[in-house]
């Protein structure tokens, strides 16, 4: 079966005065129709750059997609001229952003900002566009749509604005919605509402969603598959249950251990991953995570680990998975992590 979206060996760099920053190197994944894929990882791991590359939103210069292929409905997006790309954006695939406070234009009304999408992509008349807009606002839970359309973004709360962003993104009934940390800037109760809304909409309109987040808890409830990124590469990917039950990469272990647990009644400290994020200006010759990894071996600092299949759909890139690597048991994992949690990792300059 052909995938809706297939990203193959994508590399995107930013060329700054300091040098080339390899934001994304050799990332491959796919999204099927009606599927929700989660991309997790810490800030600066290349999640956003990956999806912006898909949307064609990498500012060029300084950014540049160095190599790779992005196939959307069998069409290589990277070979498309900008005009055709613009015709796809907002129509076949659309995107919502992290900060709804700044993502809407302050000097245009909500109505103007929504309806222009329909004018652009669907060639709707005024009445038609108005009706569709009101319908979608209603769908995302904004009841007094007619009134809202005349209001300006500053008259809306953050949650309301994100709802407007979602309604706008869905106006042309796209097949793919990319949500770049849609709840990060919202407070917790609103976060839950927005996720609930996205889950509803996904069912209603058979939408494929790529959800970017650094919150594994969100992924668990929302996605069927997860990609874990670190330092511009995919370190592990698999079904949600694979990642949560039998994660193979030490970075994923670290991520899982740093989730706060509600059922933990004792006041224990969260366990952070020690060290600092990798310096993508000076990529390490081996595994980027080696400097922070309590299980690092000599080879980890010398060669980039290859992606290994664990079972169908579950794969990870770690030297520990090499047949010659020492086998670790759960207890050993735990003790090693605790031993290192206060020491610093590789220093970045």
């Amino acid at each position: 079966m052909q995938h809706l979206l297939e990203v193959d060996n994508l590399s995107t760099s930013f060329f700054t005065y300091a040098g080339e920053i390899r934001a994304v190197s050799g990332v491959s994944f796919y999204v099927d129709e009606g599927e929700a894929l989660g991309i997790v990882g810490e800030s600066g791991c290349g999640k956003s750059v990956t999806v912006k590359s898909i949307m064609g939103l990498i500012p060029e210069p300084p950014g540049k997609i160095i190599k790779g292929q992005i196939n959307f409905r069998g069409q290589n997006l990277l070979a498309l001229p900008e005009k055709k790309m613009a015709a796809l954006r907002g129509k076949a695939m659309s995107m919502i952003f992290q900060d709804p406070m700044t993502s809407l234009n302050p000097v245009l009304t909500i109505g103007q900002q929504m309806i222009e999408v329909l004018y652009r992509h669907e060639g709707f008349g005024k009445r038609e566009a108005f009706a569709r807009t009101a319908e979608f606002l209603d769908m995302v839970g904004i009841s007094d749509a007619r009134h809202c359309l005349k209001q300006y973004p500053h008259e809306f709360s953050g949650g309301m604005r994100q709802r407007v962003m979602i309604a706008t993104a869905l106006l042309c009934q796209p097949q793919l919605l990319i949500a770049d940390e849609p709840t990060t800037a919202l407070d917790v109760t609103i976060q839950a509402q927005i996720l609930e809304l996205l889950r509803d909409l996904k069912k209603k309109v058979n939408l494929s969603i790529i959800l970017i987040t650094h919150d594994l808890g969100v992924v668990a409830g929302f996605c069927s598959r997860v990609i874990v990124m670190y330092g511009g590469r995919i370190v592990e990917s698999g079904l949600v249950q694979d990642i949560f039950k039998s994660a193979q990469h030490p970075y994923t272990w670290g991520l899982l251990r740093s989730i706060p647990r509600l059922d933990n009644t004792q006041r224990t400290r969260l366990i952070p991953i020690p060290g600092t994020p990798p310096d993508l200006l000076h990529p390490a010759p081996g595994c980027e995570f080696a400097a922070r990894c309590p299980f690092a071996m000599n080879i980890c600092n010398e060669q980039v680990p290859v992606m290994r299949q664990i079972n169908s759909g579950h794969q990870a890139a770690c030297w520990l998975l090499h047949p010659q690597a020492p086998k670790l048991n759960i207890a050993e994992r735990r003790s090693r992590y605790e031993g290192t949690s206060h020491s610093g990792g590789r220093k970045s300059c």
Partner: protein
Amino acid sequence: MRYIFGRIVSAIFVVWFVITLTFMLMHAIPGGPFSSEKVLPPAIIDNINERYHLNDPLLKQYLDYLKNMAYFDFGPSYRYQGRTVNDLLQEGFPKTALLGLSATILALFGGVAMGVTAALKQNKMLDYVIIFLVTIGISVPSFVLATFLQYYIGYELHWFPPLGWGEVKNIILPVIALSAYPVAQIARLTRAGMLDVLTQDYIRTAKAKGLAKSTIIIRHALKNALTPVVTFLGPFFAYILTGNFVIEYVFNIPGIGQFFVTSISNRDYPVIMGTTVLFAALLVTFNLLADIIYTLLDPRIKLTGREGA
């Protein structure tokens, strides 16, 4: 609406204040309208002074002037025999207004166009060319530029007449000289505004919506980028009004500016007053206009006259 009404009331107050201040200062200058003439018998001077009520107490003169002002009667000119100040203003104002308006239009459209172009071509050749022109426009005073244009374009190249008034080709050089500075300022402000706005999240959103590039620039970016330009409108109008004096003088255009300058050395009291009041009124009006444009551009600004309301 209430705000605008309040502003109009305060504008009238400002104009009144300008009248009073000018009146005082004018009379504080030594000498009178007829003291620089060749020596006249004291009786005649006395007669003339009597005729123009210049022997009245200052307070009475002032009150009389205010009373006439209320009927828009600026009185007779002392220097131009048999003509009233109203006549002079009517004669000169259209020329001044045409010059000022042309310069304003050129400054706004030219400046914004240059600024947007420079921002879109940031750090490319065109951007550097525009920045170079902007730097010249800001740093070269208008009278220097005017003389330069007169000499090279007018006298040496004969493209446009270096002096005079009456034909369309006469207006080209003065308008360029007058608008060079505001064009440069507006271009600079627009460029900075655009560069700032183009990195905003809502521009990224507009791109993600697949809008055409022209729509993004004009509809989403420009409206936001023009806010600093509107801030400049107040000083800009003041510049156009005062700049007119110089330009009219250099190009020998019979506008109000000419009357204004000569009236002071002539101690032609009513003309001084008339021109000052007119300019004060215009400036106050334009400033009010600039504030209203603000609200049209940015819905977050509300003219309520109260803090935080």
